[in-house]
């Protein structure tokens, strides 16, 4: 290995030459020392070979990452896609965040930075692989020119170009600067999947070392000279307003510097430490105006949504044949109403953002799933040009949809920081985090299905009613003012079951309760409605739930293969005594996922989930070990919600406040999770599938279907904590 004497950048603490095996690569480790160095602030100039690749003279290969690392492995898998085609030595790869302001000033050179909808790999794999191939082409072309040989006599591998006939070699680092000046080829051939050397391998994650030693990699860890800390109190009435506050008791408390209103919705205390700010916040006298929030309660909302199920203003998401007519002619009709509650996200890192506003510009340190949007939100909030905003990206202490479109925490931090000269780190209490979320919507569903005299399923009609998250967060995605995404899991591209007469419609009923994207989004509640109802239909027909589904999938080989795989791997139907199984299948984010859950319910009604078997077809699996972790994570996230998750409202306020009454799954409740891949490649789809969310939606229905198998009780509302699974003896 060559020596390392010409390093010019100091952003990364270890040299490529001493990095050892890829397992020990830790590109962020130099940030371990308390300081302010934002991740990705490599200001020294290293020439780019395409926007995505920079190679230093010592072969250190910086690969830009536009999407966010929030635990799903983006800092590893996205560079893998580039490195695959670049044919660099993976040990030299150093991932680095794209800076949002640079992306803006360079006309979105790095594309979309959004990290949501399981989009990161499937939404960028084509251009990331292409960039790697382009850079490789440029390096080979440079070497060929120096040797004065044809390009096709040169091969690239492990960061070295070799002229095959003469065995001459050039390291990437030796020719990178010159290669960067060559034209970027428009068309490059991408490798056939059979040629992949990185994709499909469990390449060790690059971020785990920092996370095992407590490195300051999160936005909440930022420390700036002269920084103040802010603790906030937002109006506890959802949709309510700040009327007045009395800071006189607070302003003399230790460390307290400012008490400021945040627009007309919150009060912030700024102090020399966060604890001082929080203590003073607790002592504030604040008068709130409940406004619209006053009469709001879970029961009033439920009544509204229930009436909505019968309303005639449904937006139809999908219609095949005439389900109403077929139902009226059916020999047997089955009806059931379901309900899914509001859910909070509870990222382990509570909402936080640091901002410094001065001289018509702003600098922001953010845990964001959508850095472009953070920048634009801060710009708009402060009324300054986007070019005057710098956003530093940090790894997220959990995302799950909370840190994407809403950006309420970024606006709040900017609104606080604009009122003082100094930088301000805002950290919400857990109570604020739970009571001011953008919740997964509470949704009610009514389903009707009809069988003909021969027992064939001839009709299925679905109505869902609840609030739309798109109205508040992404009106550009509405269709004629209607949120058809509320029909997901019943649409053309995400429900493979074939029924001759089918209809799904959404009745929109909005309120002042903020709603937003939760892991699995609309597929999470609609998957529950759909897959439990299918189980009810199987039961009515006295058929095995797996075989009943199979019969509806005769023309859907992709979903059928996943369903068959999970049934086989879980030994469907052959359980030990006292163990009961439930099965569910959900198509979303261009992936197909099925799960079989093994449970038992003891005499007191105590449920234990022993095992969850997952089968997933995501077309291609980039990093199996990371996908396995994503399946474990999806199961844990969904199971916590199935067992306990419920945000309720009374008199306009959220009634839950911390992990004692908004419970998360704990170690002792975690089932064994097995994951199997049914990778169909490009057989059914030229696009790839996502993996961050698809493991979530099947879990609730699989558990509830298993509960039915064990107890003969249909769970038509969640969470399970509200149900007595065994009748008291």
């Amino acid at each position: 290995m060559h020596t390392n004497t010409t390093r010019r950048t100091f952003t990364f603490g270890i040299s490529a030459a001493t990095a050892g095996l890829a397992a020990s690569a830790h590109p962020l480790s130099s940030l371990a020392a308390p300081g302010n160095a934002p991740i990705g602030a490599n200001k020294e100039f290293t020439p780019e070979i395409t926007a995505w690749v920079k190679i230093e003279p010592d072969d250190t290969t910086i690969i830009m990452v536009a999407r966010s690392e929030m635990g799903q492995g983006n800092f590893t898998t996205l560079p893998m896609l580039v490195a695959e085609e670049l044919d660099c030595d993976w040990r030299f790869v150093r991932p680095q965040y794209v800076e949002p302001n640079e992306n803006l000033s360079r006309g979105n050179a790095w594309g979309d930075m959004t990290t949501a909808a399981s989009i990161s790999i499937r939404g960028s794999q084509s251009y990331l692989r292409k960039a790697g191939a382009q850079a490789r082409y440029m390096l080979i072309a440079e070497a060929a020119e120096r040797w004065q040989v044809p390009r096709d006599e040169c091969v690239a591998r492990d960061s070295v170009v070799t002229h095959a006939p003469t065995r001459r070699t050039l390291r990437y680092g030796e020719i990178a600067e010159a290669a960067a000046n060559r034209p970027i080829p428009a068309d490059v051939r991408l490798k056939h999947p059979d040629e992949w050397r990185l994709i499909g391998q469990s390449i060790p994650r690059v971020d785990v070392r920092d996370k095992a030693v407590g490195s300051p990699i999160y936005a909440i860890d930022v420390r700036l000279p002269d920084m103040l800390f802010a603790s906030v109190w937002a109006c506890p009435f959802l949709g309510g307003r700040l009327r007045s506050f009395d800071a006189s008791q607070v302003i003399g408390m230790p460390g307290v510097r400012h008490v400021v209103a945040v627009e007309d919705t919150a009060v912030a205390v700024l102090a020399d430490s966060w604890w001082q700010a929080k203590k003073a916040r607790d002592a504030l006298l604040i008068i709130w105006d409940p406004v619209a929030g006053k009469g709001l309660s879970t029961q009033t909302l439920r009544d509204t949504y229930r009436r909505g199920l019968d309303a005639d203003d449904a937006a139809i998401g999908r219609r095949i044949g005439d389900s109403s007519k077929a139902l009226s002619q059916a020999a047997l009709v089955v009806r059931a109403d379901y309900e899914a509650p509001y859910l909070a996200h509870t990222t382990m890192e509570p909402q936080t953002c640091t901002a410094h506003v001065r001289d018509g510009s702003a600098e922001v340190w953010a845990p964001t799933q959508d850095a472009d949007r953070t920048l634009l939100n801060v710009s708009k909030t402060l009324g300054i040009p986007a070019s005057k905003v710098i956003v530093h990206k940090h790894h997220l202490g959990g995302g799950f949809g909370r840190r994407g479109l809403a950006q309420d925490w970024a606006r709040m931090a900017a609104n606080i920081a604009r009122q003082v000269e100094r930088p301000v780190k805002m950290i919400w209490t857990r109570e604020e985090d739970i009571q001011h979320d953008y919740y997964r919507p509470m949704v009610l569903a009514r389903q009707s299905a009809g069988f003909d005299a021969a027992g064939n399923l001839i009709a299925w009609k679905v109505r869902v009613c609840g609030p739309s998250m798109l109205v508040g967060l992404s009106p550009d995605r509405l269709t004629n003012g209607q949120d058809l995404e509320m029909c997901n899991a019943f649409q053309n591209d995400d429900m493979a079951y074939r029924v001759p007469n089918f209809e799904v419609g959404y009745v929109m009923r909005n309120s002042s309760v903020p709603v937003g994207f939760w892991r699995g989004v609309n597929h999470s509640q609609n998957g529950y409605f759909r897959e439990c109802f299918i189980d009810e239909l199987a039961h009515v027909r006295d058929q095995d739930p797996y075989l009943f589904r199979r019969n509806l999938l005769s023309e859907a080989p992709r979903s059928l293969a996943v369903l068959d795989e999970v049934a086989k791997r879980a030994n469907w139907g052959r359980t030990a005594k006292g163990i009961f199984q439930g099965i569910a299948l959900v198509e979303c984010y261009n992936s197909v996922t099925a799960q079989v859950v093994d449970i038992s319910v003891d005499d007191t009604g105590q449920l234990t989930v022993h095992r969850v078997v997952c089968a997933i077809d995501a077309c291609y699996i980039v990093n199996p070990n990371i996908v396995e972790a994503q399946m474990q994570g999806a199961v844990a996230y969904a199971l916590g919600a199935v067992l306990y998750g419920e945000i309720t409202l009374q008199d306009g306020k959220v009634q839950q406040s911390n992990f004692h009454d908004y419970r998360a799954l704990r170690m002792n409740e975690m089932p064994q999770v097995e994951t199997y891949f049914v990778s169909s490649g490009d057989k059914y789809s030229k696009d790839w599938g996502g993996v961050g969310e698809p493991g979530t939606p099947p879990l609730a229905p699989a558990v509830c279907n298993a509960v039915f198998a064990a107890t003969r009780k249909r769970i038509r509302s969640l969470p399970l904590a509200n149900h007595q699974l065994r009748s008291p003896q």
Partner: protein
Amino acid sequence: MTDITINGIPRRPASEGDTPLLWYLRDELGLTGTRFGCGAGLCGCCTVHVDGKAVRSCLKRIEELGGSNVTTIEQLSANGLHPLQQAWIDLEVPQCGYCQSGQIMQAAALLSENPDPSDADIDAAMSGNICRCGTYPRIRAAIKRVAKLQIKSSASFTPNSAK
């Protein structure tokens, strides 16, 4: 106030006595590896060792800690990585990683008291530490790996904080 020994160094806090250890560590000392999750002892994110025992630093006021020895994730091992940190890396336990400092400190306290924990022992010790990413299976595997290695090598490892 009497000094508190933090990671081997005697300190005299400038913060008020009712300041939770968590915020003293993070805001006064800049030891941000100990993380805030709930402020109520419900999630375990902020777990540190006080005289070798796992303690929720969000609930412990610094005025109660005079004369105590506090160890944080930054100094769990005096030299290099603690075997648990190595196992966390090798088995790729972390996802978002935010809770993992607390998980590791809790696991280190478990192993120092019980070098060969059963699954039930692990559940009992670790169920106070929430991980929203669902890394529990790998946490369990990492703890078992370290227990096995230490028994095999029979060279008993003493966490820095218990010395």
